[in-house]
């Protein structure tokens, strides 16, 4: 319970970069060609995400995601799908939850961690 916080604290989470990625998510597409598709579910809110991944010469060549989500999940999906491009499966599997949170650069509360990590965990699921 965070009571009576000034608007600046709200803006710490909902900063322009996050909102921009929420309104105009990156890689929110179905790639023309893909090798693997995986669904991920956030049971706490019912949000679903689907990622589609294409490989070329052992590296992730293209990735797209579909689904509805909150600002944090959509921003995270945008950032992580960009970040994994050109990386090998081993490199992608070594991305930690902390890396993902750092990428977002906002304070993520306990109840929103799943939103922030949904896309990353779905991508990593698709590789195993």
């Amino acid at each position, binding site marked *: *319970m965070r009571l009576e916080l000034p608007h600046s604290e709200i803006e710490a989470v909902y900063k322009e970069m996050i909102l921009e990625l929420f309104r105009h998510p990156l890689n929110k597409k179905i790639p023309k060609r893909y090798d693997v598709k995986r669904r991920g579910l956030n049971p706490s*809110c019912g949000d679903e995400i689907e990622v589609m991944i294409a490989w070329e010469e052992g590296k992730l060549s293209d990735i797209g995601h579909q689904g509805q989500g909150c600002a944090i999940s959509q921003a995270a999906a945008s950032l992580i799908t960009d970040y994994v491009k050109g990386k090998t499966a081993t490199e992608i599997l070594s991305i930690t939850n902390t890396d993902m949170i750092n990428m977002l650069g906002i304070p993520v509360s306990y109840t929103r961690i799943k939103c922030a990590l949904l896309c990353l965990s779905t991508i990593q699921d698709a590789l195993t």
Partner: protein
Amino acid sequence: MTGTAAKQHFALFARHPHLAYLDNAASTQTPQAVVGAMASYYTGYRANIHRGVYELSALATGRYENARGALARFINASADEIIFTSGTTAGLNWLALRLTQKFTSRDNVVLTRLEHHANLVPWQQAAKERGFSLRFVELTPGYEIDLASARTLIDENTKVVGFALVSNTLGTISPARELIALAHERGALTIVDAAQAAAHLPLDVRDLEADFVAFSGHKMYGPTGSGVLFGRREHLRRLEPLFYGGEMVSHVTYETAEWAGIPERFEAGTPAIAEAIGLGAAAEFITGLDLAAIRAHETRLTEYALEKVGKEVKIIGPADISRRTGVVSFVIKGAHPHDIADILDKHGVVVRAGHHCTMPLMRYLGLTGATRASLGVYSTAEDIDRLVEGVRYAKKVLCA
């Protein structure tokens, strides 16, 4: 005594005077009367019940059984028809397991589209094991139970009709009398999930003619981990217990055992004694405030909320104030419920976001989730004003 005057009974509001606590459908706050009743058990007469011959145990037993009596008065039942449970979920699971034991593939159980997972998943599991089918009464476009659909679905093979008296997502009050009459015409048993009704609407199980009614303590100003399953005496007498052990037997040999009478046979082991005593105090607290007055207060506030919030959002629930309670769910185009609830929290307004344990209903309505504000006896117009202000700010941030 409602609104600001009711807040004085709750220590939490002294600590957080500006908190707009609008998540009462998830859990209500606990008044001092309930905290005190539980504390007096722990500090004044703590002992196990029904066993000790000593004074302390007799005192604890007396208070525990007094609580049962208070719950019986609360819903106009007899004390032997009150089974203490850990909550609505426990009661409904027991019924789904025990009532369906002899069901076959010819039989069906009728539920509605708006059931909480607690009145859906146990029946799904039982249906998978026993082969009976599940049917769902449709909703009208106005988010109400469609009685025409119920008439079509409830037939001579219907063994159970189960429904939420109040929807935890929509606030819809079910036409309980009509559903129960339809069920009884066909010889089916009726189960009422009253979790969202107990603290908000007068509940009279005799008048309702329900066979079973389940509700939770923590949604009626009582402790967590407490609840009641009411069953009509003639049904309880022929039902098998779910758990076996101490307290629930009358005679035991190495080979076999005989069950104690009702309701003891359904309360194996040492129960949640303090919680039962606390729940009894909660029932008396509500009766003391007068449920009719609580209903009137919450209805006025709901009307106010629907008008004020309704200007900013799309309300997901009945418009007719007499057909709903103070559970006010809404969606904002382009804004995710989690973001709305997060921003409202930072404004000191506590609401719920997501599917509200009604995932199939959300899909049925074509939604992924909703934000839900739900009222209690201590809710005020200022709480609603803060909600509206927060919603406006959330829209500004998220929908710019």
